[in-house]
């Protein structure tokens, strides 16, 4: 019933609503993820070298400030340039994958870079739509169109290659669920639908589409396959933050707050840990001596080999 209702002109309305919803759910999901991880307690140090914000002469061999005599008396080095020189190639080019899993890089890089180009196209189109009829806006649409086309092709090819790997690589058999196939398969399919729809239907200028999307002008007509691709893409967009695919959020924490967090104890950290030491663990093993009433501080200062009456 509703399908029939939304056929024809009203299909655009549905596409636009799904795009708005997808973006909204995506943003909400990402914020939720960020809050989830940033609200966890400060963990014990668990850094892993090399740490790129170390002094440049130490980054070369992966060294830390522990290599310096009396390091605690010296000013701590935090080298932002070092971090950026690691992060930028990692984020844009997937450098780690290139280094440690070249076979996967050939599949994963086009996919991810394709998505970056699509994001770039969306941002540029958005800016172009806001600029209205300015010549600069037209130029932005031209660049956005290039980004969109190359992004769609790369993401479709990369997504298909990743899908095929998941399906056929015996190494991944234990680690591939239906969800994994759907995840990459849906990306590839959405991109393919938009490409095919654009090639076979009457192609609408990107600028006009962006302006219509911004103004909720549902009078514009979209080829059916493009509509299907956009709707599928919107659903995936909203779904990403609720899956492991939100690793772009996780990666900030795994790198900055785990691997590279070498901050020595200080008053701020001590205050936070002092609070955690008031938590009351409930671990059951007898040697822990946790009963839900005793705090971590009590547990840590108890010698389990001494009889309770002696402990007191």
């Amino acid at each position: 019933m509703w399908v029939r209702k939304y056929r024809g002109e009203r299909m655009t309305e549905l596409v636009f609503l799904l795009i708005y919803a997808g973006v909204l759910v995506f943003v909400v999901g990402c914020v939720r993820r960020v809050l989830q991880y940033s609200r966890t307690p400060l963990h014990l140090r668990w850094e892993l070298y090399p740490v790129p914000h170390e002094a440049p002469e130490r980054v070369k061999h992966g060294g830390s400030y522990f290599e310096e005599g009396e390091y605690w008396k010296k000013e701590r080095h935090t080298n932002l340039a070092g971090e950026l020189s690691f992060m930028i190639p990692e984020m844009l080019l997937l450098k780690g994958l290139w280094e440690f899993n070249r076979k996967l890089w050939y599949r994963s890089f086009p996919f991810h870079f394709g998505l970056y180009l699509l994001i770039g196209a969306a941002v540029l189109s958005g800016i172009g739509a806001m600029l209205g009829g300015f010549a600069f806006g037209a130029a932005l649409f031209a660049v956005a169109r290039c980004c969109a086309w190359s992004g769609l092709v790369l993401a479709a090819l990369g997504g298909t290659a990743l899908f095929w790997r998941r399906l056929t690589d015996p190494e991944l058999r234990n680690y591939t669920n239906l969800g994994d196939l759907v995840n990459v398969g849906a990306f590839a399919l959405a991109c393919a639908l938009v490409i095919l729809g654009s090639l076979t239907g009457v192609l609408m200028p990107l600028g006009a589409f962006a302006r219509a999307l911004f103004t909720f002008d549902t009078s514009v007509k979209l080829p059916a396959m493009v509509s299907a691709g956009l709707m599928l893409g919107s659903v995936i967009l909203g779904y990403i933050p609720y899956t492991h695919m939100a690793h772009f959020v996780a990666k900030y924490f795994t790198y900055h707050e785990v691997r590279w967090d070498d901050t020595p104890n200080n008053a701020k950290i001590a205050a936070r840990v002092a609070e955690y030491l008031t938590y009351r663990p409930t671990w059951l093993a007898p040697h822990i001596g946790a009963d839900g009433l005793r705090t971590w501080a009590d547990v840590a200062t108890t010698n389990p080999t001494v009889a309770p009456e002696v402990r007191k």
Partner: protein
Amino acid sequence: MKNVDIRNVSRRDPEPLVQVQKNELKPLPGQLEQGDGPAFTALNPQTMEKCECGLDGTCALNLPKPKSREEEDALVKKFLSGVEKLFTKENNWTFLQPLLLTMEHCTRCQTCSDSCHIYEASGRNEVYRPTFRSEILRRVYFKHVKQGGALSRLQHGDIELNWPMVARLAELAYRCNLCRRCAQTCPIGADNALVAHELRKVFSMEMGISAKEIHDNGSMKQLKVGSSTGMNPAAVKDNIEFIDEEMSEKTGLEIHTPWDVEGAEYLVLHNAGEILAWPENPGAFAVILNAAGVSWTMSSELVGYDSINYGLWYDDAQFARVALKHAQAAKNLKVKKILIGECGHAHKALSVIADRLLSGELNIPRESSMTVLRDIVASGKLKLDPSRNNFPVTLHDPCNLVRLMGVVEPQREILRQIAPQFREMEPHGVHNYCCGGGSGFAIMSPNNFTDWRFQISGRKKLEQVMTAFGDCLDPSIPKYVCAPCSNCKGQMRDLFSYWNLWDKHQILYGGLVELIVNAMTDVKPGFLEWAWH
């Protein structure tokens, strides 16, 4: 590559999931030979009857088989309550964030697999894949902790939670050296070694299940008598006195170890295993520190003379207790700093992991012996003759000291100065391979577990050592693997002995301080004894 369906971990039949055969393992370097047949000596039938040995034909934990289904169910329930606690801040504030990130964002792309020396050495056996145990925990997490329904199972997979699965997972937690080489290669930053660590915590802190060597005979004994070696304060002082006498005789210098000196510059913390197994190591430290005019002391306070902290590998409470005792011993003596001897895990435990636990007066600076020794050597306070060390030397990088703490260059600066034939292993530094004894394995030898250590976890290091000395394997040339870590030395002693490297190739292992003292011109020549020990 041997494929094992992950769902088989819940299989009820008594046969192990995998039986490792020698011909499946990574081939050894050309000079070493290995026949066919099972990689491990068969387990004792009594052990197989009484203990859970359903993983891979070896048994690290001697986990007793439950006597009834009710007992099994109670254990499974306890395991699940432990897993739930892992994801609460009240019980696991210490590692909650990194664990959550790994559980929820590993893409299971298997990039980490090739970096794991155990997986590689085993001939890519599926159960040793870094993601294998993580995937089991992940499925339990999404199904039972997050209470995921059918949709979640499509996304994350399913697993039957029963006692055989839990028992196999307990053993699996002890098939990882916790070296975190896998984490280094993960594009997301997921950490499968952390998962092994956290699983060990569930078993120890909730279920009271751990390796006897690291709990009963390790941290518990240390907290009871002062040292996991069983040495009480009187015994350790006696032994050190004996070492002082030996060293004085051997070096021609008057060696005296100061005890309980208030206000000393350094409290020196040795792994007490050195005192019994490699007395020349604490002896050499005493020679160097005295010759350099350093103000130092040892502590005879309970736990204050043994730097080990096995809790690092399996139990946060035990870890915190020992770390606090180390800091307390330093505080009581009013020393300015703590100097950590040649023990990798003690370095990381006290300098890195305990850092946020040691506040206020307990936050006494901890310094690596590598750094202090480098500064002493560079200062010119010791007269050194590198020609006394004119034999091939290679350096093993203890994971805890190097990859996990970033102390990479100081030991190399020393070796470049005192060992003319120093050569690196490949890869080295922060990309090194574990010796195969990490995370407690070096001291674990139940049943046929030593076979596993020498055939699998130590295999990559064996290959590295043989390759580093590839140009001088002739037994007429003595060679030295410098391993500035007590646990690594323990593994090398046993590994080299198993593969007969001393008799076949004259490959010896030892610490860094021994090489420094061997080069000291004030010391009688021949400090380093070219004899197997």
